[in-house]
């Protein structure tokens, strides 16, 4: 019995588990540990038009049950991603979700247009929520109208469905979700990192060269669950949930909240085998709880009997 296959716009997933963007590079490193075809999908590192070095180091700092990162969207640039990374990934039977970022609208549009042509790119993930980039980025992720417009423009040029990645650093996440839905998004991914900071006890100064960084890991899970719970009831889009997932049980909790698939970020650093381990453990975890298929879990925290998973009545 296949308890794990999931259909989402553009994505025919053998299982709903995928590494989160920025936590898996372009897959090369983790291919040393296991066959990437086991994964439901791969969300690759954000691509920008030009190569970016990103922020100065230190770029990571540990916090209680979490970590801060301020990588600053380092990536080899659109051209190299398309000519080197994606073809390399094509050897695996795994759909790619391309995370795209930029400072101005045109950046996003340029990357979306090109990268969505790649055969193994089955969806885009519009990163309007990166907390570690000074210019532009932030208003895309915090002002509903701006997010809506960007979504619309990207949809116009993209050859594949567009998922928009929401920032948790907002007063009203539901408003943002509705805006990108109105802009034509095919799905939502959430949450990106919370903005945080750590100071060095000896110097008094921030540990991260960028001063602030994005908080991820188990610490943020309750915030992610709450936001997915809210958003999944307010829009008719499927949600790929993330934020602190470490185990099959966490995955099920995200589904209960309203997710239809789940991405795993920070946990890859703790255990490089975390994704295949979760994929292996999910079927028996579901069976123990009495589910025939993982899709039965979606939205269980708020669904009345017979209500559909993510389509409003």
């Amino acid at each position, binding site marked *: 019995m296949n308890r794990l296959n999931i259909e989402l716009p553009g994505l025919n997933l053998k299982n709903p588990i995928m590494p989160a963007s920025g936590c898996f590079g372009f897959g090369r490193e983790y291919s040393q540990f296991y066959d990437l075809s086991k994964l439901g999908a791969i969300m690759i590192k954000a691509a920008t038009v030009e190569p970016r070095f990103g922020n100065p180091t230190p*770029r*990571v700092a540990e916090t209680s049950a979490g970590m801060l990162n301020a990588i600053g969207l380092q990536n080899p640039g659109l051209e190299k991603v398309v000519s080197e990374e994606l073809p390399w990934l094509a050897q695996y039977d795994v759909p790619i979700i391309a995370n795209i970022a930029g400072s101005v609208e045109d950046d996003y549009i340029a990357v979306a247009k090109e990268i969505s042509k790649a055969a193994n790119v089955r969806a885009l993930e519009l990163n309007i929520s990166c907390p570690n980039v000074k210019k532009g980025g932030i208003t895309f992720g915090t002002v509903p109208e701006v997010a809506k417009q960007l979504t619309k423009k990207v949809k116009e040029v993209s050859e594949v469905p567009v998922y928009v990645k929401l920032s948790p650093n907002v007063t009203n996440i539901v408003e943002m979700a509705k805006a990108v839905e109105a802009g034509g998004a095919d799905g939502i991914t959430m949450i990106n990192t919370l903005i945080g900071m750590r100071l060095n006890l000896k110097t008094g100064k921030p540990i991260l060269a960028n001063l602030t960084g994005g908080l991820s890991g188990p610490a943020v899970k309750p915030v992610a669950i709450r936001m997915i719970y809210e958003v999944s009831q307010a829009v008719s889009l499927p949600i790929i949930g993330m934020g602190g997932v470490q185990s099959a049980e966490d995955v099920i909790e995200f589904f209960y909240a309203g997710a239809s698939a789940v991405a795993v970020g920070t946990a890859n650093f703790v255990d490089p*085998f975390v994704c295949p381990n979760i994929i292996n453990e999910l079927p028996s975890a579901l069976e123990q709880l009495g589910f025939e298929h993982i899709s039965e879990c979606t939205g269980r925290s708020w669904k009345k009997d017979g209500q559909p998973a993510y389509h409003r009545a």
Partner: protein
Amino acid sequence: MIKKELSKIISQKEIAADVYELIMEADLVSEINAPGQFVHIRVSNGFDPLLRRPISICSFDKKAKQFTMIYRKDGRGTSLMSDMEPGMYLDVLGPLGNGFPVDEVNAGETALLVGGGIGVPPLYELSNQLIEKGVNVIHILGFQTKSAVFYEKEFTENGMTFITTDDGSYGRKGFVTDVIKELSFDCLYTCGPTPMLRAIEKGNPDKKLFLSLEERMGCGIGACYACVCHSSDASGSSYKKVCSDGPVFRAGEVII
């Protein structure tokens, strides 16, 4: 190949103030291919602390499947490690990174190994392998103060060994760079705090020189871009990852 393995603690002892020598048994020893590689250790099986800790391999014994680490008890992770006892297991990921190239110096030539503080350990295996090869090895080991000194005997058995302390409480007072100036050598290998590495690079522009860098890490395997440094080429966007391209670089390869 990188392995992830529950490795058994064979022995642990405090060999200087807050400095511990930890001997582990693990299959991954068979994969070690150079001195200066490191392992990435998960100290708890929960999330306190969450991330792994990078620690250099100080020496290893392929036959016994054992390797030794030396670390300083500092924050939460290393404190927890220091509480562990023989027979317990640690989740170890490794071997990681590219170590010191032993083949850059020939038998009969002289290699200078310069370590600062907790940068000293990876030089020990390097010293062993160079000696084995017939290289003359000179060690300069800098510590803050007398109580921090370790492995003097081990290094001295391999070759001439200078100890410096910042406060002069043991060996020569001053910095390792003062000693380097007085010596002649064919190749210099070094590991220690970044300011020391910078000073050594600056002071020895024409020498064959290999430096082991340190940077805060996420994944330890090259996937997260936490540990990058700029390559020494013009573009500004080209880089090296300390964890997977390093931690050892040839002088001039990266900007430190």
